[in-house]
């Protein structure tokens, strides 16, 4: 091998070595950068949401099996206090558990605040409603007319939610036993933009559903709930700006939503229907 070439090779090697050593000592990538954050101290919205909420509400707050939170219309609809209260206490009787520590959940108050802040600041956008008035979030203790609700249901919802229809039954008693009236109401108003269900403005040909009509549909659906089914009651302390109880189905069917003072004791999954699940054998 000619001398010059050998020297060239050696030079390259020494360059590489110097570069490598320099790179390593500059970066010292092994140096621990930050102290570990313990679970109680996590207040980063992304982390909190992806560890606690994404399982059901979807990775970006949508495309999960339950209500999408990444939905400007929904966030406009729901009062902040209700959102916070729901996260803290869950919705007894439904798949939404309580997250606050004093309710047996994993989250500390500052973490719940961080979640609510994050949901609102990340996903709230102004919604142009034009002349249509946004229905109120809750029925305000207004019992709907189930018979009238049935008429509207057949006219407006049956196409997608009737027997054999594309999307599938919402009148299925098992389904109704697992959702709160408020959930039904919210779904009718806000739709499910991620799964293609339109909101209340487009459910009814001709005009947007009125507050009363929505309550009527909910009353109709609630009347189909099986007797003695798990009732889903959902309470907010009064003084949250809206009326007291965001409420929903009561014992069994037919009744309207409970009174605003309806304060229901904890009845979470702990004391749930014992051993009566049918086996169909």
């Amino acid at each position: 091998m000619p001398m010059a070439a050998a020297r060239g090779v050696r030079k390259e090697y020494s360059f590489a070595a110097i570069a490598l050593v320099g790179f390593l000592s500059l970066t010292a990538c092994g140096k621990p950068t930050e102290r570990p954050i313990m679970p109680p101290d996590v207040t980063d919205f992304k982390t909190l949401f992806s560890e606690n909420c994404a399982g059901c509400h979807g990775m970006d707050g949508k495309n999960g099996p339950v209500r999408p939170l990444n939905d400007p219309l929904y966030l406009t609809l729901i009062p902040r206090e209700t959102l916070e209260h729901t996260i803290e206490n869950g919705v007894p009787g439904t798949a939404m558990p309580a997250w606050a520590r004093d309710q047996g959940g994993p989250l500390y108050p500052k973490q719940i605040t961080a979640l609510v802040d994050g949901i609102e600041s990340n996903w709230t956008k102004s919604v142009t409603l034009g002349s249509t008035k946004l229905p109120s979030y809750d029925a305000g203790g207004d019992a709907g007319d189930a018979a009238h609700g049935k008429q509207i249901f057949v006219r407006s919802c049956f196409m997608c939610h009737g027997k054999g229809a594309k999307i599938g039954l919402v009148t299925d008693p098992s389904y109704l036993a697992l959702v709160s009236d408020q959930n039904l109401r919210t779904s009718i108003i806000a739709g499910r933009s991620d799964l293609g269900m339109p909101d209340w403005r487009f459910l009814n040909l001709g005009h947007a559903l009125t507050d009363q009509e929505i309550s009527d549909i909910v009353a109709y659906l609630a009347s189909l709930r099986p007797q003695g089914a798990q009732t889903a009651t959902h309470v907010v302390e009064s003084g949250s700006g809206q009326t007291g109880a965001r409420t929903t189905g009561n014992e069994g069917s037919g009744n309207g939503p409970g009174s605003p003072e309806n304060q229901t004791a904890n009845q979470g999954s702990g004391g749930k229907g014992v051993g009566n699940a049918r086996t169909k054998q």
Partner: protein
Amino acid sequence: MHEPSSEAEKVKESNPPSRRDWLFAAGLAVNVAAGVLLAIPLVGFVFSSFVQRKDPRDWIPLGRLDEFPEGKTRIANYRNPYTRPWDGQTANIPCWVRHIQGNQFQVFAVNCTHLGCPVRWFQESGLFMCPCHGGVYYEDGARASGPPPRGLFQYTYKVENGQLWIKGGEMPTLANPA
């Protein structure tokens, strides 16, 4: 035999061997005795914890009854009754309190009965699960699945003055279930 050549060997021969032997034996014996005297406190010091002199457990208040809603299982922490000043947070011991109804409780140690890892309570499915080897227990502490040889360890409890008390103070293991 050879002639005594050095001074040392001369000395050896001039002295009666019995006296040297006696000195050596006596020296050994004295040192064995002294060694035993030294060893007794050393062994006693190091192995004192092998023998447990008194019951380390004591009644500990876990909190007011209304801190434990009926039908729910909640975590409760207590300060170990016997602590040293430098124990720090290691003397804060958690346990799972299940309020069945009225004055009926179950207080479980967090330690899995398999190898002592901390079991976690899952309210929705009503199960305790262990992160180490996947032991699972039902809400009443009975073994549900996985390697645990028995149900969760339970503390003795009493209700007094509106408070829930447990008898604790010792890490529960198979050899010493709470």
